[in-house]
Each structure stands twice: as C-alpha cells, then as structure tokens.
C-alpha cells in the first residue's frame, strides 16, 4: 500500500475542502460575475481589481492577513466570537474561508467572460417573451454560460487542491482538520521521508495533469459546437 492512513486522510480532507470551496465559490461568484459583466457602475473597476487581487498577491500576504484577521483581536475574529462561533483559525471552516478568498478570481473570471460573450440580446429576447429577469437568468443566461460555469468549477477545485501557503499559515497542521495533501508533502520532505513525499507528489502531478487535460478537451469540443 503506497499511501499511509495519514496520506489517505489528507487526500480525503483535500477533496472535501476543494469540493465545498467549489460549491460555495460558484454560489458567490455567479451573481458577482453577472454584475461585473453587465454593470456600468463606477464601482466596476475597483471591484474587478479587488476580486483579482488573490491572483497577484503572494499566499504569504493572504495567509498573514487571514491569520491576523481571524485571530481573537482581528475584525473577522471579533465577529465570529460575537456570533458564538469562536476563533476560526486552525479549523476546517477557517481553511474553507481562506480557500474561497484564495480561489475567487478563478471562479469569477471564466463566468464573467461567459456572461460578457453572451451579450445582452438573449436576456432582451427573454424579456419580450415575458420572462421575469430571475427566470430568464436561470433558464437562458446560466445554461448559455454552461462551459464558463464548468471551467470555473474545475479551476476552483484544482486551484484549491494546489493551495499551500495559505493553508500553512492559517492551518496549524492538524491531522484530519487542516493537514491537506500539499502541507503533508511539505512535512514529508522536511522530515526527509522522501518515499512518502514521492507517492503524494506524484499523485498530485498526475491529478493536475488530468484536470488540465480535461479542461483543454472541454474547450476544444466547445469550440467545435460554436459556429
């Protein structure tokens, strides 16, 4: 058995984190991307910049700010304590929040591009057919943005699996709670357990390649459908 029980635990935890992050991100990113694609508001530029920030900032910056913000004296920590949730650093929920922030641009951008490419016509047509805006959004816009939605989901999932710096800084390396595959590999390398590190690292490499291959194939088949 190449994978130890700890490794399997880390793999399961990583999959759970990535899946939950993806679901929550799509819920958050869809309205945000819709608004960004269609608004003429002067807030569009600053919000775009804000959403894109995690793409540019080093994970150490995000991790550091999250650690301080989630701490008992930070704004997020004060809020969660007031709500009776306690402090979220070193918890799975804390990691989930970190992952959502970290992968936000990977969910918003493909969706936004899909909505922009669609233009305003489909929604206008739907409106003339007396569809309510919400109805039209779910029956016309969202299906048309399908490939964008799928790309957003795949990228969010893969990017969360590949997350390292943020987890290292706010996780606390607790088995089954915050010790994901990437930090587990790091631990193995530092402890000179190269065999275990190789198995997990190799698995990660194969997984990432398969995801990107799937994405590329998906884009190609989608391009063929388009005129």
């Amino acid at each position: 058995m190449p994978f130890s029980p700890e490794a399997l635990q880390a793999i399961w935890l990583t999959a759970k984190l990535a899946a939950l992050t993806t679901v929550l991100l799509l819920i958050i990113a869809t309205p945000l991307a819709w608004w960004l694609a269609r608004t003429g508001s002067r807030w569009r530029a600053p919000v775009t910049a804000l959403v894109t920030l995690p793409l540019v900032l080093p994970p150490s910056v995000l991790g550091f700010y999250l650690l301080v913000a989630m701490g008992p004296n930070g704004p997020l920590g004060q809020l969660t304590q007031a709500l009776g949730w306690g402090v979220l650093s070193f918890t799975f929920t804390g990691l989930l929040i970190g992952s959502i922030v970290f992968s936000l641009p990977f969910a918003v951008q493909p969706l936004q591009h899909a909505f922009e490419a669609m233009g305003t016509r489909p929604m206008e047509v739907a409106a003339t057919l007396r569809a309510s805006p919400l109805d039209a959004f779910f029956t016309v816009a969202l299906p048309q943005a399908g490939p964008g939605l799928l790309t957003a989901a795949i990228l969010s999932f893969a990017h969360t699996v590949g997350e390292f710096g943020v987890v290292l800084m706010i996780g606390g390396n607790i088995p089954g709670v915050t010790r994901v595959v990437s930090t587990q590999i790091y631990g193995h390398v530092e402890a000179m357990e190269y065999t275990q590190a190789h198995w997990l690292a190799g698995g990660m490499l194969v997984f990432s390649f398969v995801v990107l291959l799937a994405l590329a194939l998906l884009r190609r088949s989608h391009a063929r459908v388009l005129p």
Partner: protein
Amino acid sequence: MIKRCLSVLVGLVSAVGVQAGEVSVAVAANFTAPMQRIAAQFEADTGHKAVLSFGATGKFYAQIKNGAPFDVLLAADDETPARLEKDGQGGSRTTYAIGKLVLWSKQPGLVDDRGEVLKAARFERLALADPKLAPYGAAAVEAVTRLGVLDALRPKLVQGENIAQTYQFVATGNAQLGFVALSQVWADGKLKEGSAWLVPGSLYSPIRQDAILLNKGKDNPAAAALLQYLRGAKVAGIIRAYGYDL
C-alpha cells in the same frame, strides 16, 4: 562594453576576495534574534559579512543535501549536523548553544510559574512546533508526556512548521499559549511580554544546538572566522542574554 563589464566584475570579485569575505549561514529559526546581533558584531569586528538565512533545520538538511550554497549551518539540534557529517557534507561540529523551552502566552497571568495551566487546560489552542521537524517541538511533546497531560491536550494542539511559526501563532493570539524557544520571548535578562513558564530541564532532553562547517565553506576564511568567533567571550554574552545555556 562587455570588456568593461567584465573588468568591473573582476574588480568587484577581487575586492571581495582580498580581505572582507562573505559567509552564507543557514540559521535555525529559534536562533534568529541572537544571530542577527552576532552577525552585526562579527562584521564590525572582523570585516567579514555573514549572510543569514533562517528556517527549519530539517528543511536546511534537505537543501544542503541537494547542493544549497551554505558555508555554515547553525542547527536547532545536534542530530542534523551529525547526520550531515556522516553523509560527507561537512565537518568540525561544535555546540554553540543549549536551547531552553518555555511555555509562553501573550496574555499576562495566563501561564503560572509552575505550568499548572496545562492541567487546568482553560484554553482553546496550544501551539507547538511539529515534533517530527523541530527539536523544540519534540522537547515540548516530551515534556507534556512526562507531565502526563499529552492525551488530554491532544485535541487542542496546533503545530507550527518551525518554531518561528509557532511563535507567530501565539503572538497573534490565534493560540492562547504555546511552547516556544526562550530566545524568542526573552531579551536582556527578562521576559519581553505576556506570561511564561520556564519548563524545567528535567522534563525534556537537552536541546544541544550544533554548528557544522559545510563542504562549500571549507576553504572560505570567513566561514572559519565565524565559527571561531562563535566561541568567543563576546558572543557567549549575547547568547546567554537571549536565554541559552552554553
């Protein structure tokens, strides 16, 4: 143009080579603060410049084995230098400091001076360094095991990748208390802030911190000078002021 660049380069290299040497040093995270002071003093006294990298000893081991360009390693333990010597990566090992473990909280009054706080366990999170990677983490586990509270504490433990990260968890209040190196919370003979319990030496094996001259530094006069300088009386004073034994 290229010629001019080259001659400038040669000039620079020879200027460095003549007297003021440079030594690159991998330093265990717990020794960060004293080493910064020692390096400044070293440069003032000898003209040699010590370029410092701080991190986990285990990480440095992997990097050195894979060709990292360090002249000297100041490890957090004595095992890693011994293993490096066995691997043929260097020699002339010496103990430069003996580390002390402290249970520390940023909150004044949380940690009592007998460590009773560990038994009462009125806290959410206790931070320690990963015992697999960091000698201070291993010492912490040894101490709580001997106190018989390891199993009770286990659900509250969070691990830093090295002792610097462990300190960061406690300093930001994300963990109410944690086992850190005395050198991190001690300066000029007193506790910098918060409350602390100096863990008795009888509860854990001594943390002997060894230095080793690596192959790359063998012919570097600045590396030899640094190792000699570390054994001097002036440095002994600095090391003691940060709460290490010698």
